[in-house]
């Protein structure tokens, strides 16, 4: 026995020498940093900034180009996206429109008394305007030299054109074309330890504000940041609470889920009017709003369990939606709140038109697209591209009655060795939604053959869309995926290797809250990690 113990001891010592030192993950609350970023404003952030600074009347004329979606989110693409000549043109057009409006509508004069009181250009007044509007648009206090430069721009403009409004037009134009208005350029602030620092105070406020309000920091937050309050957990918590309880949280939640579910793509969704005559353009618009209204009610008004979004039967509907859903909607114009009946087989936001029609073809459904979307959007699983040299010879077209249903046709894929890997991942999930056609209407047959909606999701088998709804709701990756996406959204990038412990911690907090989305947002906004950056650039190591 002693000999055996001795051998074990020797083995442990030897193995101890041979095995590399295990990587120690930090405590989840200990900040590990990340890169300081230059994030380009999203379309929503740009528009909301204009509305916040100038009010609801400001003209929004910017034609945004298609965003870059990275790791499933437009927000994560903002730290990777470049800048085309087209963008420069469009920002310029918008800058001119806003500057002209601010001058001609009297907005400038009504907000800056010194403009109204002077008959010509007044440099002191230009300094006041530069300081205030600069701080709001660039999201940080301006240095004296910057104020001087902006005032100089206004003065030079006045010298070139005698129109009394020209200096102010020039001043606003220059601010709206300023790189730090169009980009959220972050600087490194005070150190936390030898390798990790706070992002600077202004950037902390910007991170927090865009995350919890989808808009730039207000004056109170900017002032708190300048006092260093966001580096103090208690003072920061007070600001987080203030923003969490502000009406702007509704906007923030909508923007996040619109990004996560790619609901913006519905604006360009076209269906064949011959095949789906009920899918008029208003349906696409209302479908997006329906899903967002459902999420708003569930997450904010009821503070319900996030996972129940996949089984909810809440039905916000309009008449155009009612035609596709084939349910009566007495309200002639506008929204009404109903419940989807048990017979409708509609449980969860994945049974909404927004999801079903988006992940389908213009003239038919797609079990593959829907299955892939369930995995990628809600479970954060990656579905590989199809191989380039796949042989489709066995697959037939939709009108062929030899293989009347999608299940029959896709079965051929799953039997082909080069296809079966991916289709085994997507199809058992997507086929459970085949009860819904390419527009989202319920059906029980395709080409006169009954549709079989049985399927399975990662070991859980079911018979119909209801079964899929519960399998998705109870999938262990469902809440974790939301945590990952929410943090990527907030951080504007993919997660880092060393952030695994942090994410685990967030998952626990989320679970402890009963999977309340607002609690998750609060946890991120209160964490040091959200505001920490590396002191030196590192090779980015994706999670």
């Amino acid at each position, binding site marked *: 026995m002693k000999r055996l113990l001795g051998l074990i001891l020797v083995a442990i010592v030897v193995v101890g020498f041979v095995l590399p030192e295990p990587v120690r993950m930090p405590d989840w609350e200990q900040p590990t940093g990340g890169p300081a970023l230059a994030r380009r404003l999203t379309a929503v952030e740009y528009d909301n900034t204009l509305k916040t600074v100038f009010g609801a009347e400001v003209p929004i004329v910017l034609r945004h180009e*298609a965003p870059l979606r990275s790791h499933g989110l437009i927000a994560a693409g903002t730290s990777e996206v470049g800048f085309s000549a087209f963008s420069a043109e469009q920002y310029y057009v918008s800058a001119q429109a806003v500057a002209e409006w601010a001058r001609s509508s009297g907005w400038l004069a009504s907000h800056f008394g010194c403009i109204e009181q002077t008959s010509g250009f007044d440099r002191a007044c230009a300094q006041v305007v530069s300081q205030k509007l600069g701080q709001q648009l660039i999201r940080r206090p301006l240095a004296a030299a910057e104020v001087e430069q902006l005032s100089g721009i206004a003065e030079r403009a006045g010298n070139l054109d005698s*129109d009394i409004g020209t200096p102010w037009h020039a001043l606003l134009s220059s601010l709206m074309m300023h790189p730090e208005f169009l980009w959220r350029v972050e600087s490194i602030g005070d150190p936390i330890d030898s390798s990790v620092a706070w992002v600077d105070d202004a950037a902390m406020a910007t991170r927090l504000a865009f995350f919890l309000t989808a808009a730039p920091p207000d004056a109170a937050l900017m002032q708190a940041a300048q006092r260093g309050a966001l580096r103090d957990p208690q003072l920061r918590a007070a600001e987080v609470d203030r923003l969490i309880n502000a009406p702007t949280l509704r906007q923030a939640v909508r923007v996040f889920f619109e990004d996560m579910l790619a609901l913006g793509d519905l604006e360009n969704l076209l269906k064949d009017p011959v095949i789906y005559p009920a899918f008029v353009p208003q349906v696409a618009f209302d479908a997006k709003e329906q899903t967002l209204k459902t999420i708003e009610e569930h997450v904010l008004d009821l503070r319900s369990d996030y996972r129940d979004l996949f089984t909810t039967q809440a039905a916000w509907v309009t008449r155009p939606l009612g035609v596709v859903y084939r349910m009566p909607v007495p309200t002639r114009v506008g929204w009404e709140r109903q419940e989807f009946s048990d017979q409708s087989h509609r449980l969860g936001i994945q049974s909404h038109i927004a999801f079903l029609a988006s992940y389908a073809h213009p003239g038919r459904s797609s079990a593959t697209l829907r299955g892939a979307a369930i995995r990628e959007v809600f479970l954060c699983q990656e579905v590989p591209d199809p191989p380039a040299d796949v042989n489709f010879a066995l697959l037939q077209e939709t009108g062929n009655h030899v293989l009347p249903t999608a299940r029959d046709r896709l079965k051929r894929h799953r039997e082909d060795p080069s296809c079966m890997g991916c289709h085994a991942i997507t199809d058992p999930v997507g086929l459970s939604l085949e009860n819904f056609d390419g527009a989202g209407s319920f059906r029980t047959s395709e080409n006169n053959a009954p549709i079989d909606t049985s399927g399975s999701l990662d070991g859980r088998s079911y018979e119909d869309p209801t079964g899929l709804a519960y399998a998705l709701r109870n999938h262990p990756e469902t809440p974790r995926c939301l945590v990952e996406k929410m943090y990527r959204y907030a951080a504007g990038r993919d997660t880092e290797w060393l952030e695994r412990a942090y994410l685990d911690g967030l998952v626990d907090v989320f679970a402890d809250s009963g999977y309340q989305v607002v609690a998750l947002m609060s946890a991120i906004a209160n964490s040091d990690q959200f505001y920490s950056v590396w002191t030196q650039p590192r090779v980015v190591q994706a999670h």
Partner: protein
Amino acid sequence: MAITRRSALKGMFQGAAVTVSLPFLETFAIPALASTPANYPLRFGTWIWGCGFIPEKWIPQATGTEFELPEHLRHVQAFQQKMALLSGFDVKLDGVPNKPHVTGCLGLRTGIPVPNREVVAPTLDVLIGDQIGSDTRFRSLELSASGTTNSYSYRAASSPNPSEISLLAFYDRVFGDGFQDPNAGHFAPRATDLVQQSVLSQVSESRRDLMRRVSASDRARLEEYYDGLRQLEQQIALRLEPPAPVENFEFPSRPEMPELGAEMDTVLENHRLMSKLLARAVQANQTRIFNMLLSDTASNLRERGSTTTHHTLTHEEPVDATLGYQPKVGWFADQSMIGLRDFLQALDEIEEGEGTLLDHSVVLAHSDCSIAKSHAVEGIPVIVAGSGSGRIKTGQHIAGYGDPISRIGLTLQQAMGLPTGQWGTLAMRTDRTIEALIG
């Protein structure tokens, strides 16, 4: 102090805007304008259709100058002497995974096959644009007729030049505010332009300080922003000078909004209208570089009333045993050549001296793959149309016999005056000009 046109114009701004009358073709008369092609700007454009072709319906049996156009090319019969067909040139993958509909298209346009959309920019059109088109109002103009804003024109990997999908938005952008009618006969510089030039110049001065604060990768992205500012400055500078008169230019009226959709007939009509507007924009020297997308590389086109897109059909339609190809896919390939005809016609019906706008342009028309069913990037069909004022030898069919397709890109760069000796990477690296294509 030398009195330049610029300083003279600045001198006019002693107060409000002034109007400077410029007698048409007197002040800025170009005596040789109508006689030699050398006086017309050289233009370069690309034209893309998705999902390849049916080889037996597209590749002429003979090479050289004596050949008959196969069935699908009958639509462009009128342009046979104004174009060169190139068949049998391959994107050489050299171990790079083939991302369907992406690797072939970007490999052709950059000489570097990539396994995803992380294109190794810039693309060919941008390279050529920097040589021949940097002093126009727009660096380039991109259009897409089938509703997708995708583009295969990249200055940098993360910033494609997005395609306009709206005919009206394109019209307003080019012919709306900021457009100077070259034949208006009078010139009215605006004081506001001088002001804005000063503003943008000041904004650009932030560059040095900002670049010091950001990482190397962010520096490259911000450099694109400053590059965009430079184009804006140039646009304004152009507005401060009288535009050169343009013969035969007719200011286009604002079009009606056409029907939108991905049905083939709708797309062809939208494309025809877009081509005409684009040709007017090019004629009026708004740009020298243009990129038109008839259909995206994973084509979303449909036959009206059909449940299935062109792209899906390439996957799912059975090969007809008698024909030896997918008949419905063949229909889209055939229809796509009607689109090419309309595009070339729009350029060719604008007369410039003794030739046409097409004669003074080089258009690289290509798809993303050869046989879409297998996503093959070998033998991607290519047409080079327009001789570029004699730089390209047209009226011929050249077979590549499996040569790297980067030879086409290299040859076009050289024809357009770039000092490029070799182009591409790995098996696509080539220094072999296609001599037969050089005029």
